[in-house]
Structures are given as structure tokens and as C-alpha cells.
């Protein structure tokens, strides 16, 4: 935190050259602003660091050791050895690929669905609005583990799921289809449950963005004879860029760390292993803290890369001053 209290501007202006009043006021303002900014944002910043910095550093540190929790005496420094093991193993790349696949597919589906839902809620007649919003918030509020169980029981042949009976008219679906015995069908259910659970998140964020779109611009465009599609492209989307960016970024990063529903449904069987699960099974399951931390750090780096690409790609900079786009 920068020191707060002594106002050096005032001192200098008393002793040194007298700047113009306007300029004094401006620099006073600027300094006040810096101080206020840190007073407001500082606590959150400090808390975030305190909660995560130690564990993160510890994880990086741990990844340099060969360390198994149930064999504490055999701990040894291996430098980048764990990373070498992870990066040369097909298991890691397979799970990375599956994770990326799930991420891209879910985010793409969710962006379209979420935007449609946001538009529906935004435009809906008042009587429907409450209902729609309530309905949409239900999947969002449901615990992921619970939604995973709901989808799992519906599809699982060993729990008497009804899906096979209901959809036996679909080619390839019959009463003996075991959804969780093959990669494709398992991923289908995993992605479906992920989409169901998290689309509302995207549509909520998009809705708060939609609400900020100046209505008179839309009206003006319509008066000028623009089609709905043109209004969408020219007026609504540009004004929602920030909201879309945040929604996509957070959903992508969230999807990239998918864990709960894979854990519940397949636990990584049949080529549904995802990165988080691999890290979990290695560090918590096998208690190989070193290897697991290495996977976690790599996962973290992937995620940094994704967000970097997203921020640069969208060219929306949340940290820029006062929404000057």
C-alpha cells in the first residue's frame, strides 16, 4: 500500500514554484484518486494474495521435488524432472486434448444458448420475465455435484436411467446402450450436463450487459429501417463487448478446470480424463505431491495462456480507464 496521510503536493506548492491553480487542483485530484483507489481496492488485493500466494508458491516449490506423502523420508530434489515426466507422457496430452475439446464445445454452445436466453429474458413480456429468470437461475444455483448425479442417473444403465427408453427412436440408442462405457457417449453426457448447469451463468452476465445497451440507439436504428440482425450486429453486440468478454473468458477458464461432473460420472474412465482430475488423482489420490503439483502448475500455465489469448484476441481491456473504448 502506498503511504497515506502526508499530502506532499501541498507542501511542494507552498515551497517551490507556484503552479497554476488549475494544475494544483488536478494533481491534488490525481493523488487523492490514487490514495482512494488503493484504500478501496487494497483490502481485496491483500486478501487475495494472502489466500493464494502462499499455496501457489508452495505448489511451485513442491513441483521441484519427488515427494510422496506416504513416503516422507524419500523426498528428494529433482528440479524439472517431474515436468519432464508429465510432458513426455501421453496421459497428460490426452487429458489436455479432452479438456480443450470440452472447453471449446461447451463455451461455443453456451455462448449461443446463453445469448438467446438473455435476449428472451430481456425482451420477454413482464408476466413471463419472472418465470423465465427463475427457471434459468435454478440450474445455475444447483450444486454441480447434484446436477452431475441428476444427469448420470438419467443416462446410467445400471441405475435404471430412462433416457434409453425415451430415446430409442434415435439411431444408435437402444435399451442396451451404456453411455458411460465409451468416450464419445460419456463426453456427450458430460458436456450436456456442463452446458445445462452453466449456460445460465453466461446468460446472466450477458443480460447485465444487455441492460446497458442504450435503448434509444436501438430505436434509432430501427427507425432507420435496420433489420433485427443489423441491430444486433451494429448496436447490441458492440455495446456488450465487455460483458461478452467477461462471460466467455470466465466460462472458458471455468470449463477448462472441469472436475466435479467428470469425477461423479466416469472418474476419468474410457478416455474422459481431464486435466484437473489428473492433477487431483496424482496429488490427492496417489499422494504424489511433486508430480501432482507439476501437473497443476502446467494446468495453471495453460490457463494463463488461454486468458492471454482471449484478452488480446478480444482487444477488450478491463483495466483501461473509465470505459474509454
Amino acid at each position, binding site marked *: 500500500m502506498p503511504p497515506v496521510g502526508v499530502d506532499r503536493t501541498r507542501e511542494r506548492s507552498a515551497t517551490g514554484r507556484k503552479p497554476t491553480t488549475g494544475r494544483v487542483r488536478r494533481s491534488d485530484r490525481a493523488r487523492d484518486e490514487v490514495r482512494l483507489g488503493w484504500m478501496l481496492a487494497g483490502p481485496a488485493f491483500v486478501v487475495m494474495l494472502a489466500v493464494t500466494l502462499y499455496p501457489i508458491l508452495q505448489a511451485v516449490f513442491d513441483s521441484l521435488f519427488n515427494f510422496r506423502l*506416504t513416503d*516422507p523420508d524419500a523426498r528428494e530434489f529433482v528440479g524439472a524432472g517431474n515436468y519432464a515426466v508429465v510432458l513426455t*507422457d501421453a*496421459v497428460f496430452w490426452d487429458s489436455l486434448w479432452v479438456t480443450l475439446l470440452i472447453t471449446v464445445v461447451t463455451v461455443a454452445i453456451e455462448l449461443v444458448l446463453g445469448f438467446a436466453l438473455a435476449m428472451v429474458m430481456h425482451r420477454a413480456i413482464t408476466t413471463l420475465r419472472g418465470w423465465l429468470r427463475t427457471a434459468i437461475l435454478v440450474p445455475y444455483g444447483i450444486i454441480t455435484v447434484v446436477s452431475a448425479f441428476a444427469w448420470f442417473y438419467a443416462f446410467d444403465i*445400471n441405475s435404471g436411467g430412462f433416457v434409453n427408453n425415451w430415446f430409442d427412436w434415435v439411431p444408435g440408442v437402444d435399451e442396451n446402450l451404456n453411455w458411460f*462405457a465409451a468416450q464419445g457417449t460419456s463426453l456427450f453426457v458430460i458436456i450436456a450436463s456442463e452446458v445445462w448447469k452453466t449456460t445460465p451463468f453466461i446468460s446472466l452476465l450477458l443480460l447485465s450487459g444487455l441492460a446497458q445497451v442504450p435503448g434509444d440507439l436501438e430505436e434509432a436504428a430501427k427507425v432507420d429501417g435496420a433489420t433485427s440482425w443489423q441491430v444486433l450486429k451494429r448496436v447490441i453486440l458492440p455495446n456488450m463487448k465487455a460483458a461478452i468478454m467477461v462471460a466467455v473468458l470466465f466460462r472458458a477458464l471455468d470449463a477448462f478446470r472441469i472436475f466435479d461432473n467428470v469425477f461423479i460420472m466416469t472418474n476419468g*474412465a474410457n478416455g474422459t480424463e481431464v486435466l484437473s482430475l489428473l492433477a487431483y488423482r*496424482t496429488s490427492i*489420490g496417489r499422494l504424489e505431491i511433486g508430480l501432482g503439483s507439476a501437473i497443476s502448475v502446467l494446468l495453471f500455465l495453460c490457463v494463463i495462456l488461454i486468458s492471454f489469448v482471449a484478452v488480446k484476441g478480444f482487444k477488450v481491456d478491463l483495466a483501461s480507464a473509465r470505459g474509454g473504448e
Partner: protein
Amino acid sequence: MRRRILATVTALAVGAALAACSGESGTPTLTWYINPDAGGQAAIAQSCTEAADGAYVIETSLLPRDAASQREQLARRLAAQDGSIDIMSLDPPFIPELAEPGFLAPVPAELEALGTEGVVQGAVDSAMWDGELVTIPFWANTQLLWYRESVAEAAGLDMTEPVTWDEIIEAARSQDKLLGVQGTKGESLTVWINALVASAGGEIIANPEAPADEVELGLDTDAGRAAADIIGRIGDEGLGGPGLPTADENASMNLFASDDGSFMVNWPFVWAALGEASPDVVEDMGWAIYPQVEEGADAAPPVGGINLGVGAFSDDVDLAYQAVECIVAPENQAEYFVTNGNPPSSVEAYEDPRVAEDFPMWETIRDSLDLAVPRPQTPRYNEVTLGLQETWHPPSAVSPDSSPEEATSLITAVLRGERLL
């Protein structure tokens, strides 16, 4: 006594449940981490607390459902030298991993006999590590071959004699029925593989006590190939039903109870469970020793169950062992069997008249426990079982030509720290 009656009357009079609050301050509380059951362990904890008469109070705390997660929780906390873990219900295969780094308090000399004498052989084997008794057997589990008498009869099988896997596969095929086996990617798959390999006279690990990088596997042998052949055939021909790749003990029981049921290998819990759910199936239900791989060579049935370990970091190791002694008393084991369906490790407990009444197959269970061969006892068991599940799943993809080899190379590399799982 009079004081106690008086106290009880007073408590009732004020209508408070305070009398149930056990122990005045100063009574040590022992925490017993239990695997989920039908409430039997909690009941034993209560009766042992009462019997201790103020020496200690046993409180139970529930562990997760599956063995792997139970191990995970305990190992992590023991590695952090958690003093709150006094008594643990342990799944035998994971015992060496906890015993090796000294997370289990040594068994006092005077209790050695408790863990070895009058205990079924399978349970004694599972309680040892490195030639020493490290846990006390509490109950022992084994899988039997359950069959539908009507199907066995139609297939012309004489069930009074031991049958082989080939015979039951042939019977299921000829009768157009399904076999109840556990093909899900989990510990139950390893249970099946180990029983097949051991029945064929082999062993998954040739030198279980060797250091991790010197472990040699015994899968790439005739025994390993025979095991892969059986699993592969059942998977390939769809004899385990469409649910096989995700079938656990419960799913195979439901398959057995359906119209397609024929033969099933499973733990005795199915007897009580089916007795409640589908009495008509029970009417038609028989049991025998686990199937043989080679005709005439005794099968090596799976062994499971729970042993009690005491945490090395507990403040009351001596008291905890006293409590263990109370918990594993034969009458408690018999009670646990009839109420929760988990078979005793104590031979004496089988003589309880209630056992024969509720579990007509008690003799088969006891005999099976004497034949049973435990899963490999190694501190790296977790890697071994995960490596097997990785390479021998789904069952339809298991083949004698490739699976034993794949498992051998993967597990060896993982133990050397060269590969991930």
C-alpha cells in the same frame, strides 16, 4: 448401581437427554474412523463405550464410500501426523502403505494372539506387513459364486462339485443369460483380476516387499494370460451385459436379480440385499465356492473385509488398543454379521446360532476365507491397482496377447516414477 438408577430416574424426570452424554470431563475420547455400513460399527462403539465404564468414550466418524477415497483421507491426515485419528477401519490392501512409513502404532505383544489365533487364514495374511502383525482383523469378506438354480439345472451343471469359469461361461452362453461380474474401472476389477490370476496359480506381483523400482510383476505368465482370456471372453461376447464396463458389485447384483441372471461372483451382502428386494430370486438362489480357472485346481477367492489399525500419532494408543480388543470380540463380530451382513474373521463367531439361521451359506464363506488369496501386499498397492484398471478396462478390450504385457510395462514405469497414471 443405585446411584445410576437414581440418576436415570432424575434424568427422565426432567426430560433431558443429558444422561446420554457419556463421560464426565477427563474421559478420553477415542475417534474411530469407520467405513460406511448399516450402523453396526456405531452400535459396537456404543456398547464398548458402555463396557469401558468411563475408561474411554468411542466416537465414530464416517469415511467415504469407496476404498480408494478412504485410503486417501487417512493417508493424507496421517502424513500430517494427525493426532485425532485413534482407531481406523482399514481395507486390507492399503495397510502396507500406511504401515511402511510408521503411521500405524505397533500392536502390543499381549494382543498378538488376538489377531492371529482363531482367525481365518485370509484375514491373518491381510493383517501382516513385513512379517509383523500391524492391524487386528475385525471382519473378513470373500466372494462366493451365486447362481440361479433353475439356470444351472437347465445347463446341466452339477453344482455340488466345484465349477470352472469355462463351465459357467458355456452355461450362460447356452442358456442365453448374463453373468454377474464387476467390470467397472475400480477396485472391484482388481479384485476379479487377482482372484483369476491367483486361481491359475500365479501372482500379480512376484516380490511384493521389494522397493518400488525393483518390483517384478507376474502377469506376463500363463496365469496372467488365462485371467485375461476369461475377462476378455466375457467382455467380448457381451456375456456381462451392456452395463459391464460400468458394473460394480451392486450393478451385477441387479443384473443377477433380473430375468437375464444366471451366475454371479459377489460378496455375501447380496444375500441380505436380495432377501429384502426380490424374495422370489432368493428362492431360486444357490451358492458355491468361487469358480476355478483350471479344473481340479482350487480356486483362490477374493478376500476383503476390514482390519482395525491404531494411529501412530494418537494420544491414547494403549486405550485405543483396549477399545480394539473390545470391538473385535467374537460376539460383536457375530452380531455385526447378522445385522450388517459382514462375515466374521473370528472362527468362533461362526458358531453363534444366529449366524447359521440368517446365513445358511456360513460354512461356504468360512471355507472360502481359508482358500482366499489377498491382493498384492505392497506399499505401492495404489499404483498397482490403478495400473491394472488402466490397462484391463473395458473388459471387451482385454486380450491375453497384449493386456498382461501392457499392465506390466505401465505399472513398472509408474513405480519407477517414469509415467503418469
